[in-house]
């Protein structure tokens, strides 16, 4: 490999003259005296004189000229970088380049990056929760960490009290309720109203009420109230506090606070909407949810429900246990299945349950009750049909006496103490289709520890198993039921639900409802009305 010879420099100008240099140049001798300076340098450093020591700027005067490393510093309001060239005679030539624009750009870039980082972090923190109190906490905490020394978030309310979340200068978040009208703070009432839009408002810290200042905060330097813009609803207000020793808010900081307030307001109003929607659906759903069952009249009742979709809590299966009333001395249990799934089916179960409830006084005649329900369903605009099973339950000494009637529904299973499983001998027409319905009622006695198991076809028609697509079927249900001999009602329900669930695995399934009626076993059975021990059966 050949290397090209060094370019001959003879004939070319050996140095650029200091005077001709396009930037300020200062030549210092080894003793720090100014040896030479060009016009640009003279204009920049008017105090510098040839032959005198360089007095300012200090960063250049004291710089080590023997090391080939640039130094930097300010001259007036500008920034310079000084590159040294060491000459043979010990003098140093300092070439000064103006870096003001670059520095400003770097500084602004860093500030912009940190603002973006803050807004990104704020967005992900605010997006995480749909809970109003959490959103308020996150807002107060982020505002304190990035915008102010302390922050308060005040939620709008129809009540006479103000829900407040404060984050103090130590980062401590507290929730409280302030019993004061918002108009005691200038601008707060307007900010909370949400409309018409108002800008951020500075208020004189001296006029701020005590509840606005966190305990131990010290003297407030500046205080600003920023409205939180909501999604068509008022979202609240953000109060930022800075101490006296801190700078007041700059224009950039104020605009950042505005961007943050927009995000916080959107998150808080989304949380508020979510809570409102939930309150509505909870109220509507309360009537449709399966009831929690317990022991009644010395008989154990337990129920379990699993909707076809895991995200839902209601579906087309239902059950109810109605305690005895003056008109009907027996407890009436109903378990049924409306054609279809999901919310629409659930609404119909609500209607059937209400109808049955109204017909309770006729529970001594299951057939008549079913005829009336059938008529009611056929005259309603719903085209769906239902199957159900009714059980009238009465305790007789230590035994439990049942009248069971199926209307097109799988017959209940009777689990005897010895593990024998019998099918109740009842049969009937389904409800809501034919003009006339017939049914046959079975009478069953349960000895202590025996159970009558009511279930929907979601159990028997569950598909799954170790090999994937096998139907659970009556045989497996009977076998599982046989294992439940002697168990308390809750345990029977749990066992059947568990076996079914394991059978289904991750697969799809229909609504599943299971209900157990069990004659209790145990030492205290006779003391149903006892005063102390044994009172649990009542």
């Amino acid at each position: 490999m050949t290397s090209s010879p060094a370019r001959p420099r003879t004939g070319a100008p050996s140095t650029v003259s200091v005077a001709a240099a396009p930037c300020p140049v200062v030549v210092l001798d080894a003793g720090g005296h100014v040896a030479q300076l060009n016009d640009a340098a003279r204009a920049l450093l008017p105090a510098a004189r040839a032959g005198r020591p360089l007095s300012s700027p200090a960063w250049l005067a004291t710089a080590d000229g023997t090391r080939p490393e640039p130094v930097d510093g300010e001259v007036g309001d500008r920034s310079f970088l000084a590159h040294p060239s060491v000459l043979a005679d010990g003098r140093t030539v300092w070439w000064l380049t103006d870096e003001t624009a670059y520095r400003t750009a770097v500084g602004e870039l860093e500030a912009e990056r940190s603002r973006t980082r803050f807004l990104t972090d704020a967005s992900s923190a605010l997006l995480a929760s749909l809970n109003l109190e959490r959103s308020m906490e996150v807002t107060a905490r982020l505002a304190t960490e990035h915008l102010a020394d302390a922050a308060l978030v005040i939620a709008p309310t129809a009540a006479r009290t103000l829900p407040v979340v404060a984050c103090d200068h130590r980062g401590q978040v507290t929730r409280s309720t302030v019993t004061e009208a918002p108009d005691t703070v200038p601008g707060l009432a307007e900010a909370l109203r949400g409309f018409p839009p108002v800008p951020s408002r500075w208020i004189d810290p001296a006029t701020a009420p005590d509840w606005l200042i966190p305990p131990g905060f010290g003297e407030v330097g500046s205080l600003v109230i920023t409205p939180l813009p909501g999604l068509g609803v008022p979202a609240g207000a953000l109060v930022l506090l800075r101490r006296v020793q801190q700078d007041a808010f700059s224009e950039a900081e104020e605009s950042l606070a505005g961007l943050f307030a927009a995000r916080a307001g959107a998150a808080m109003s989304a949380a508020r909407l979510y809570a409102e929607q939930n309150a509505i659906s909870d109220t509507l759903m309360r009537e449709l949810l399966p009831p929690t069952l317990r022991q009644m009249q010395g008989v154990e009742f337990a129920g379990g429900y699993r909707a076809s979709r895991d995200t839902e809590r209601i579906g087309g299966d239902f059950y109810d246990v109605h305690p005895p009333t003056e008109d009907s001395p027996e407890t009436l249990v109903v378990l049924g299945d409306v054609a279809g799934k999901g919310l629409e089916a659930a609404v119909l179960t609500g209607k059937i349950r209400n109808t049955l409830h109204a017909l309770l006084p006729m529970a001594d005649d299951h057939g008549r009750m079913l005829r009336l329900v059938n008529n009611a369903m056929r005259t309603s605009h719903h085209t769906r049909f239902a199957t159900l099973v009714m059980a009238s339950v009465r305790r007789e000494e230590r035994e439990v006496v049942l009248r069971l009637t199926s209307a097109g529904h799988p017959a209940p299973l009777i689990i005897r103490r010895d593990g024998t499983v019998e099918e109740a001998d009842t049969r009937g027409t389904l409800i809501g289709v034919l003009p006339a319905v017939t049914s046959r009622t079975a009478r069953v006695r349960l000895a202590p520890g025996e159970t009558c198991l009511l279930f929907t076809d979601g159990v028997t028609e569950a598909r799954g198993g170790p090999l994937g697509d096998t139907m659970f079927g009556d045989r497996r249900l009977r076998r599982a039921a046989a294992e439940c001999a002697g168990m308390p009602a809750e345990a029977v329900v749990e066992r059947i639900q568990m076996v079914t669930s394991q059978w289904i695995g991750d697969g799809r399934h229909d609504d599943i409802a299971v209900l157990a009626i069990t004659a209790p076993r145990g030492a205290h059975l006779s003391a149903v009305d006892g005063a102390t021990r044994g009172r649990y059966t009542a």
Partner: protein
Amino acid sequence: MTGHLTEHTDRPGRRDVGGRLPAPHGDDAAAPWADKLWTAVRAADEYTGLDVVTDALAAGLDPESVLLDVIGAVQRKVGTEWAANRMSVADEHAATAINDRVIAVLPVRRPADSRGRITVACVDQEWHALPARLVSETLRLRGWQVDYLGAQVPTAHLISHIHRTGPDAVCLSSSLPTRLPLAHSAITAVQAAGTPVMAGGLAFGADGRYARLLGADAWAPDARAAADRLAAGPLSRPTPAHQATDDLPHLRDQEYTLVAKSSPRLVRDTFRSLEQRFPAMRDYSDEQRERTAEDIAHIVTFLTAALYVDADEVFGDFLVWTAEVLSARGVPARSLLPCLDLLKEQLHDFPRACRLLDAGRTALTPRP
């Protein structure tokens, strides 16, 4: 001989696989009450059980001790007795139901204002609710406001509950290591909702290693430790929302996804091959055949769970425990080996699965 796997048809559906419970906290004053409750539970006598707990409280035993050292101790014994084949599945369910009911005797305390709100839930498909119930009741006794969501809580329900109530933390319970993949999705979802998670239960390992692996913000070995940890101060804020594979880089090889997806076929093919190799199986009753298929399905489920967390011991411990359960029921443990061989033949393209199967075989081999 593999056929022996199915000899004991009364064996329950492995509800308690891996369900050994850690030794209880010693409380001498509680021990006699625990013995009495055990007798009542063993006799399925709920009323006597209620009386035992009422009397223990009346005798001055601290409610938390009644909860954990009497009721909790009895529940632990239920687990060990079942494993030793001294309790049937009916007894076990009945005992758990009675334990669950006697908890109601404990005093109800108004939540203290200074304490926060905690949600306690079992992972989806997790049926063992009692450990979570014990945590809930312990926290209640210590003044927390507790929302106890019970067994098998679908993650979507849990998240919706978090948005509604805004708890300070979620305690997530799981007993079976096979629920670890679901536990992971629950943990990441709760954290994405800005709420820290404390994991507990046997699924997460005796030292909580899987809780850490799955990114839980805290782990507690038992109800007392959980309550102590929460009392010590708020859990650290969870890391921002992230992808599951960030926690578990080994998942990028897709072995878990592929094996889990093909598991029904794996079970079917293994079952058919067993039938061919062991003609005696052809004389099995339908029920025996189904039990055999269930056994294979369990092995595959644990194998996939072990793939998810990439831990030999999840698979090995399951096999050793199964071998112990089988031995207690008079079935030789070597009956498991042909299943492992057949699975390895089908999974030869999956290096991590093969490693786990080899480790399982080693774990099953008696040491000299």
